């Protein structure tokens, strides 16, 4: 469960860290992918996992366009973070209402043939969709980590993040790199959104709840820290899971936010030192 938060959070963390863009619409894009998966499943019985293959490239292209035409003009503003928050909030509103128009406000669930199947491993048993969500998220996180550490573009992304000016001197095309990062971030939100849809029911307003978890994962893990976000996602998943066993449901969120506040005040750089 936590790994899915991690997958959703990584893209958010990347665009925050690399471009100083806090993408409020991040979760909305994820939700969009979830709805797309739902429609594909209903119309052609396409498995949600396969639908990621459709939604991820689609979101990547859409995000590149958004970056080129909407985000680029504001990167020169004095306070990129603030302007980007307002801007992406606008995008989130548009997306949410597009989804309302297309899919109506009813809550949906992704139901596949294997939804209720269970795997039993010794004393533990795992629900199939949870396992699928976990595996997909793990693959997603892994591939992003691989991309950043091993490929040329990934290295350029990390360079741009540490020293934007120096990176440019060494021939890194900052604009192109930023565009790719943003595209990648939004695309990973798409994959994360489908994984979330496996676990929870969703409706066009759900993205604001997801957004809070995004902040949680990124802050706990440290901004721009991929592995930190992954571990933070797992920790949050475990905490909410465990506290569900001891506390009534409505107190769980209270605990989560209280915890986030305390972490923020005591260790604003995240629980793990940034390791870039």
């Amino acid at each position: 469960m936590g790994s899915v938060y991690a997958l959703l959070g990584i893209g958010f963390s990347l665009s925050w860290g690399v471009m100083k863009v806090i993408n409020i619409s991040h979760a909305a894009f994820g939700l969009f992918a979830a709805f797309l998966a739902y429609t594909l499943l209903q119309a052609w019985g396409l498995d949600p996992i396969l639908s990621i293959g459709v939604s991820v490239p689609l979101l990547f292209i859409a995000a590149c366009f958004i970056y080129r035409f909407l985000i680029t003009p504001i990167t020169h503003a004095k306070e990129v973070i603030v302007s980007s928050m307002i801007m992406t909030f606008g995008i989130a509103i548009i997306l949410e209402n597009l989804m309302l128009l297309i899919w109506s406000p009813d809550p949906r669930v992704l139901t596949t043939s294997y939804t209720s199947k269970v795997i039993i491993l010794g004393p533990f048993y795992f629900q199939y969709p949870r396992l699928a969500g976990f595996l997909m998220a793990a693959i997603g996180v892994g591939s992003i980590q691989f991309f950043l550490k091993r490929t040329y573009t990934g290295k350029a992304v990390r360079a741009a993040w540490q020293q934007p000016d120096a990176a440019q001197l060494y021939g890194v095309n900052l604009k192109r790199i930023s565009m790719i990062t943003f595209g990648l971030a939004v695309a990973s939100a798409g994959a994360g959104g489908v994984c979330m849809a496996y676990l929870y029911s969703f409706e066009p307003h759900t993205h604001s709840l997801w957004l809070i978890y995004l902040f949680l994962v990124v802050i706990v893990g440290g901004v721009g820290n991929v592995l930190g976000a992954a571990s933070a996602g797992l920790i949050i998943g475990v905490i909410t899971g465990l506290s569900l066993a001891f506390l009534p449901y409505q107190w769980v969120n209270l605990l989560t936010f209280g915890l986030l506040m305390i972490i923020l005040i005591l260790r604003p750089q995240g629980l793990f030192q940034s390791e870039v």
Partner: protein
Amino acid sequence: MVSSSNRLVFGVSILLFLCLAIFPWFGLPVYFVSLLFTVFMFVTLATSWNIIGGYAGYLSFGHVAFFGIGAYTTALLVKGFHLSPFWTILSSIPAGFVAMLIAMIVGYPCLRLRGPYFAVVTLCFAFVVDLGIKNLDILGGPEGLWLKSPDLPIETIRAILFEAMLVIMMLSIMLAYWTSRSKFGAGLRAIKEDEEVAQTMAINAPLIKIQAFALSAVFPGMAGGIYAYYLTYIHTDIVFDMMISILIVLMALFGGGGTVMGPIIGAVLLTLINEGLSTFVKAEFARIIYGGLFIGVIIFLPNGIMEFFKKENRVESGIFLAENGRNRSAA
């Protein structure tokens, strides 16, 4: 020169205030009174937020918490002491002070964080208060609280509350005006530019940050109190609605943070546009246009609408090019 223009501004605002004050007694449809009430409320919220968010650059995304705390304080006071309508309106004053007290307590640890971290911690604070109240049964819990409406015609009640909100709005604008002129405001601006430098210039940054945060919580608390009585029913989902929090920030920045007029213009425009759009087109389309508006403004007027007016004014009033150039190089 300065004092005469000052007097002009003062006179115009008094005139405007009187015009607005007699407005509800003309027997217009309640709708208009309610609409203006909402406008006043958002002007109060955005103007107050501007003190910490606009001047000091600390983006508080949790200001709805103070609004909600004010609403709940008033509701509890009214319920607990069975207050008459007159006292109810006055009970929004302690509500404002409760909000201020909580702002001080919360502000002390939170204001050490900067930038997006402060934004997130205040966001969390709003959620914690929201969920906390929802889970406490003495505060109405998930059912919310009902307030008894007095036995007066609806127009009269609305008109009275309208006046109360108007007064609160005027007070908050006066506070904003004072802030923009005082040493306090200058200190906050210095903090926004560079906190370390401000501190070496003998500005007690932690202290004035807390003062600003507390001041920016008072009027939202009072407005929340009036709003609670206006709705006669309060529920955490209404008075702690995250949308309000985000709208406050957007309104202030939309108009132009760190100016007196900016949040006022932003709040009035956005409230009216939202209202106007939702009467003429389908709600979803209205929202899509609304979202597009944010994108448009941020691309073309990244520092808010006020910037546009300032440029116009400077050209119109014929201030010399040198002055213009100096301002530009300063910015």
